């Protein structure tokens, strides 16, 4: 046997070996997960939270569940955020979606109504797993700190998601660097102190020849700071234009304001907001807007930046990666006393309106909806939410005090209503205008005036495009309730006396009229706007 033939045979045998091993593995997992004598049921949960600590938290809760229900296996399917959108669409349309799917990415109104089960009846019932806790007997809805509002879809008039966490935005400081730079290691409490700390970083750099960055920025982290600060500038104006307790501003709301000439790109609020944005942007890396979330995180974790703004969702990841202790504080906003920026401000923005996040929805293609629903009750129960916040370091959705690490992120309720940031003026197209023109603000031959010029030119068209899209959505939503209306009307004609039906009929009429109203409003606005 020649050497060559021997080598060929060895190669083939190796390959065959790999093949057989892999095949065996697949067959084994298939058969143990499916229909085996003891009827093991598998519930799958899909989400995109790949941040540190979360998968462990899900596993911990799943393990607890499996202790109580030994014939149920709970498996999580974490999918990277980048492909979650199209993965979700493909799975939903293809009918192979897992039992529980986190909603928010890739799920719009239409997909929710087609592929997800409404969970309103769940929200009305008390959580069976809350027996023996202070929340016993309380309807599920009221056990959440936001009353379940996060999972509620106003266009469809149903709850679709059970939330299990909540998010706030904070500034993370490198505690070691903070002490080096300020001497006292105190987190800046006011806006002046905030800017002051950055100046101290520059002094520190000059003194020691180091090259520290005050704030690590990126396309993802930069706007968190800038938008929040911008919103402080529009607070007063918004309170003047709209009645108190106006709902979360949408693109239609803002467009109405612009059409009524209450707002424009030339308003002093917009101007001071943009100036404030520039003030902060100066403290980030040049060209930060092109960098990605990972890049900014890398700067911070490597100790090259003093601070980074991010959501509470990053806290465990940062803690796991950073070799230094962290100090966490809210984004200090200008007060009325602040020179230059105080004129348009009402005060610190309250986070009382924070909605719960990580909404888990139940798909219609689930083969074991009852068990899935039971698991949803389980994960939203008081003891499990406690476990959640301990293991993941994230806030709980239920009114349970967050544990140690998560405590710094508890929503700060004191404060005033938020203003709007530039992004609230529209949706996708507005974002595009902002993103592609941002460099003008920070470039040396650009600046505030140049940026506002571009805004003045491009924003009306962008808002118009977004409005057209919103208009189409309203139309589609209204049309969808037409069928329901017809069915309910027919049923009510043939089934008088059914109280439940009458309530539903009312709700459908309300929803349909609300959609209709929105549609009419946006159509009117479109006509009013210059083409």
């Amino acid at each position, binding site marked *: 046997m020649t050497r*060559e033939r021997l*080598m*060929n045979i*060895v*190669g*083939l045998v*190796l*390959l065959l070996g*790999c*093949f057989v*091993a*892999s*095949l065996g*593995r*697949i067959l084994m*997992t298939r058969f143990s997960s499916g229909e085996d004598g003891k009827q093991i049921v598998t519930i*799958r949960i899909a989400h995109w939270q*790949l*941040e*540190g600590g979360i998968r462990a938290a899900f596993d911990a809760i799943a393990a607890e569940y499996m202790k109580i229900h030994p014939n149920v296996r709970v498996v999580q*399917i*974490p*999918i*990277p*955020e*980048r*492909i979650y959108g*199209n*993965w979700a669409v*493909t*799975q939903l*349309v*293809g*009918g*192979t*979606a*897992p039992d529980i799917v986190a909603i928010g990415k890739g799920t719009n109104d239409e997909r929710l109504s087609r592929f997800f089960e409404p969970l309103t009846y769940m929200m009305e019932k008390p959580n069976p797993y809350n027996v023996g806790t202070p929340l016993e007997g309380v309807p599920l809805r009221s056990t959440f700190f936001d009353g379940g509002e996060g999972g509620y879809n106003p266009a469809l008039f149903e709850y679709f998601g059970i939330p299990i966490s909540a998010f706030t935005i904070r500034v993370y400081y490198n505690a070691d660097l903070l002490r080096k730079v300020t001497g006292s290691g105190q987190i800046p409490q006011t806006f002046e102190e905030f800017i002051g700390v950055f100046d101290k970083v520059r002094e520190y750099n000059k003194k020691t020849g180091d090259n520290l960055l005050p704030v690590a920025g990126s396309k993802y982290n930069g706007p968190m700071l800038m938008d929040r600060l911008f919103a402080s500038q529009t607070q007063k104006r918004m309170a003047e234009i709209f009645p108190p307790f106006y709902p979360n501003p949408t693109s239609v709301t803002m467009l109405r304001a612009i059409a009524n000439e209450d707002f424009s790109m030339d308003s002093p609020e917009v101007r001071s907001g943009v100036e404030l944005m520039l003030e902060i942007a100066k403290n980030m890396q040049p060209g930060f807007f092109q960098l990605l*979330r*990972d890049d900014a*995180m*890398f700067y911070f*974790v*490597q100790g090259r930046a003093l601070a980074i703004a991010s959501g509470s969702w*990053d806290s465990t*990841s940062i803690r796991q*990666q950073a070799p230094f202790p962290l100090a966490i504080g809210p984004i200090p906003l200008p007060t009325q006393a602040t020179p230059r920026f105080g004129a348009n401000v009402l005060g610190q923005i309250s986070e009382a309106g924070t909605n719960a996040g990580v909404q888990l929805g139940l798909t219609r293609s689930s083969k074991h909806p009852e068990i899935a629903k039971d698991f949803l009750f389980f994960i939203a129960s008081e003891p499990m939410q406690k476990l959640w916040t301990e293991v993941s370091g994230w806030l709980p959705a239920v009114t349970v005090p967050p544990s140690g690490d998560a405590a710094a992120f508890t929503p700060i309720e004191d404060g005033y209503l938020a203003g709007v940031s530039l992004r609230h003026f529209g949706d996708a197209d507005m974002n595009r205008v902002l993103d592609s023109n941002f460099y003008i603000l920070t470039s040396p031959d650009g600046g505030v005036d140049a940026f506002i010029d571009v805004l003045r030119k491009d924003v009306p068209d962008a808002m118009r495009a977004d409005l057209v899209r919103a208009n189409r959505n309203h139309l589609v939503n209204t049309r969808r309730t037409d069928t329901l209306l017809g069915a309910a009307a027919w049923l009510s004609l043939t089934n008088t006396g059914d109280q439940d039906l009458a309530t539903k009929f009312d709700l459908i009429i309300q929803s349909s009229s609300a959609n209709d109203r929105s549609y009419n409003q946006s159509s009117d606005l479109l006509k009013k706007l210059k083409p």
Partner: protein
Amino acid sequence: MSESAVTKMPRIKESRDGRDWTKHLLILAILALEFLPFYMMLQISVKDNQTFLTNTWLPSPPNTWLWSNYAHAIGLILPYVANTVVVAVTSTLAGLALALCGAYFFARYRMPFSGILWSALLVLMLLPGVANIVPLFALLKSFDLLNTLWALILLGITGAQVFSIFVFRNFIEEIPRDLFEAAEIDGASHFQQLINVVIPMSGPIIGTLAILQFLGNWNDFLMPLIVLRDPELFTLGVGLIYLDGEYIKQWGQIMAAFFIASVPLIIIFLFTMKLFVRGLSSGALKG
């Protein structure tokens, strides 16, 4: 064309001797650049992020090599590699078998309708498959094949048919007719003729096509991305996207995972190198 046609032309001793050195240098420089990704992959796979930052280019000393990166990486990527091996091997073997049969049909006799069928196949070669993805998805759904590896295997087999049949047909037509006739006289059925006459002669061609198809399957990520739901079924393409989606990446582990993803290919190449080079150079694919 069998490889015997590629006889090496005797070279004239050109009068410019020194010229060859520049050629060698150029080729070596180009090859060095080609090998750069491979080299980087290897040397990063044993470092951690910090070491890599301070020492980007050169390999770190052997006593600091982090073998734990590989341990981690195996956990990360082995399931995906296993799945991909199954899909790639199955679809390559089945695909080649079917293509051989199909090519035999075309090459042996000009049966009625074979002209039409042949054009039908050729058209497919020019058909950009890009518009097919959407209806393909709906088709798989109606066959209930979504979220299975079978879907990938079937698609892999189909994808290879046209090109393989084309190449095989050219090859089989070159085989001397008498061999077939002799086998027929001995009473061999068509199938036996295929096995006893065609296959022994077509070693390099089969080898080359097998490698090309295996590679194609190994690198495919689009259909798996659309079709698969369960992470335990993910093939390599999706698995790598998954790794890329982690928020803070440990580059050493990821590079180690890349290396492990290349191992089956290394095995194949080591043992079939000659076949492949011979096959490609033999001009059978001269089109």
